[in-house]
């Protein structure tokens, strides 16, 4: 029998000696240039972190290449960030430049620090999930190709976090990003009565629906969907393969803006709906890429220094945002789920 329940490797075994020596006793840091952080300890020791963008979906040979560089320049230590970047941890200053040259020669971008775009947190999409309304890796690649300059150069008003989830289960928890790209289904599930009777328990399927849209249909030993109540979440499909939610004609992408996680200055905020629907147009999703780029540019043009996208929008007002971004406001933008009322304007103060 193999050992079980022993937990992850102890982090101390994975830390470079300079970190072990200065653990909890770092004094300050500086961003030397995009992608290069310098941390100085109270002891005076220094560590340089070189942040490198990764496609996240990578082969074992990619990891081995990372290891080769870490062996050559970082005494065999490396880490990954919460947004899927690689960080090479360098103690010898003279190793920084040759490391960066080798990284660049491989076509890997150095950046993502400070007021840069960081890597996109994203989900599995058509690569590995059964409910997606769109792909994940493909859109991420197309968007990052277009916004590449913002990752490698620091020229935005503040941090920019873009995330993607391919359905509203939001494995990527995209709901607090400056820009969130979210796959949406727009039609209720199509019930395959024969299959359902064979493979699924009716009470489980009924109970899976958060809006109570599913009723038993005893005659067919199946269920039926009250289409007016369904908000296309796909939960029933997760429970039963007989509730097909994917719909190539109607599935697509929505875009949400102004979320943030950090407590710096303003409290964390949810991302809010900007564009309710754009079509799936693989392999490069030009409509989505274009829309995201425009949003970044509108914000970069109008925001004050240091203002995250949501902070900027809250200052100018959403009514002004829609005007500046040239996005039509529709009935889809007005919340009609269970926490809607506090989003309605209950004052006569607003901008024209």
């Amino acid at each position, binding site marked *: 029998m*193999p050992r079980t*329940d*022993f*937990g*992850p*490797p*102890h982090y101390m*075994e*994975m*830390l470079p000696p300079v*970190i072990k020596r200065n653990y*909890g006793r*770092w004094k*300050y*840091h500086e961003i030397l240039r995009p992608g290069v952080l310098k941390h100085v300890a109270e002891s005076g020791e220094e560590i340089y*972190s070189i942040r490198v*963008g*990764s*496609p*996240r*979906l990578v*082969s*074992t*040979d990619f*990891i081995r290449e990372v290891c080769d560089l*870490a062996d050559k320049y970082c005494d*065999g*230590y*490396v*880490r*990954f*960030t*919460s947004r*899927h970047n*690689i960080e090479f941890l360098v103690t010898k200053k003279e190793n920084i430049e040759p490391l960066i040259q080798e990284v660049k020669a491989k*076509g*890997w971008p150095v950046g993502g620090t400070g007021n840069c775009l960081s890597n996109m*947190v994203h989900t599995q999409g*058509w690569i*590995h999930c059964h409910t*997606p309304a769109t*792909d994940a890796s493909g859109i991420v*690649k*197309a968007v990052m*190709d277009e916004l590449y300059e913002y990752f490698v150069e620091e020229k935005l008003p503040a941090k920019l976090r873009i995330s993607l989830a391919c359905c509203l*289960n*939001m494995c990527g*928890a995209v*709901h*607090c990003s400056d820009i969130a790209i979210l796959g949406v289904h727009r039609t209720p599930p199509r019930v395959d009565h024969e299959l359902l009777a064979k493979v699924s328990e009716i009470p489980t399927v009924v109970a899976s629906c*958060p809006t109570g849209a599913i009723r038993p249909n005893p005659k067919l030993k199946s269920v039926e969907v009250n289409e007016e109540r369904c908000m296309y*979440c796909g939960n029933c499909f997760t429970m039963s393969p007989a509730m097909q939610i*994917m719909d*190539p004609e109607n*599935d697509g992408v929505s875009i949400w803006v102004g979320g943030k*996680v*950090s*407590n710096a*200055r303003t409290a964390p905020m949810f991302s809010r709906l900007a564009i309710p629907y754009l079509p799936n147009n693989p392999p490069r999703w030009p409509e989505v890429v274009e829309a995201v780029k425009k949003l970044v540019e509108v914000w970069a043009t109008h925001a004050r220094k240091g203002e995250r996208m949501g902070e900027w929008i809250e200052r100018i007002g959403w009514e002004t945002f829609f005007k500046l971004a040239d996005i039509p406001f529709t009935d889809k933008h007005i919340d009609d789920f*269970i926490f809607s009322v506090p989003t309605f304007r209950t004052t006569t103060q607003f901008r024209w």
Partner: protein
Amino acid sequence: MANAQTPRVDELEKGPWPSFVKEIKRAAEKHPSAGDLLRQLDLSYAEKIGHWKHGGIVGVKGYGGGVIGRYSDKPEEFPHVKEFHTMRINQPSGWFYTTEALRKLCDIWDKYGSGLTNFHGSTGDIILLGTTTGNLQPCFDELSDAGFDLGGSGGGLRTPSACVGPARCEFSCIDTLDVCHSLTLEFQDFLHRPQWPYKFKIKVSGCANDCVASIARADFAIIGTWKGAIQIDQAAVADYADAGLNIQEEVVEKCPTGALAWDGEKKELKLKAEDCVRCMHCINKMPKALRPGEQRGATLLVGGKATILKSAFLGWVIVPFMELKPPYTELKDLLRRIFDWWDENGKNRERIGELIYRVGMRTFLKAVGLPPVPQMVFRPRANPYVFWWPEEVKRNA
């Protein structure tokens, strides 16, 4: 050749950002399953629909989770991804690795899997993407020998994660890596044998910058903070001013509570400590000059989650300040009370935040023994439907 068969996804080999398609092709040189994965993806690009389906439950001996079963719905066309299960491997706290450990992982995965991975999944695990049912157990056996355990899935504790914390961040008010590791070990059973109404996530950030997005993504968020005044090194503040930082505009005026004032003549930064809400902004701007106060601990928040089912919630404060010193007994006891109460009262697929929303904070607080304090709310209630406990009123006969 592979190229001829995947014209659509091949388009994504172009462009400056590193390409996942190239990565899949690299894996495909050794692993036929990676080749079939790419071909199936190309079909999805043509038809605009996914091709994975539900199947039988799979796993490894002794575990109830950590493996996600995955089956192609086109097994005749793509036989090598007929079974293509994912293994979630618990990452070391803070995502630090020796190359030795990484190479071992790669060798095992090349032996048993598709050669494809996610470094990392959005919850934090190492994701080993795609293997057959038959390979799951031998793969796990070798991983176990190499010191890697499974992560979480299903209705149980999910793999906790932590920001880089004291390992490389001067802002960290708690030992995020140790808290994360210690909780992961303490609650192995809940992690590996899902037994709860739904998932439960714990994330640990060393300060209010919240680099692991705990407030948005964790049912239980642990965020470092302090009591007392920010420590100010006035000479270093003056250095920032001399170096061109506009302290009035970029620091003082951005303070959410007006707790700061700048005397440009004397080059002195003044702080009204009682007004500081520890948002981290001024410290972020001048890390050389400002440091968190000396009495350190964490704010604990509960309820954060993505949309499913009742809408997305941000975590809300339930303990404004707790000191966190190993072995973290107070924290673990509180977590155990929360787990018990939720397990007992939660409906199937009801996250802890949704349960509290359904039955009310007062019920939750009473059940887990936490005192109500004003830090828990932005403002008190406005509606008069106030409920009283039976013992608080006199029963009329």
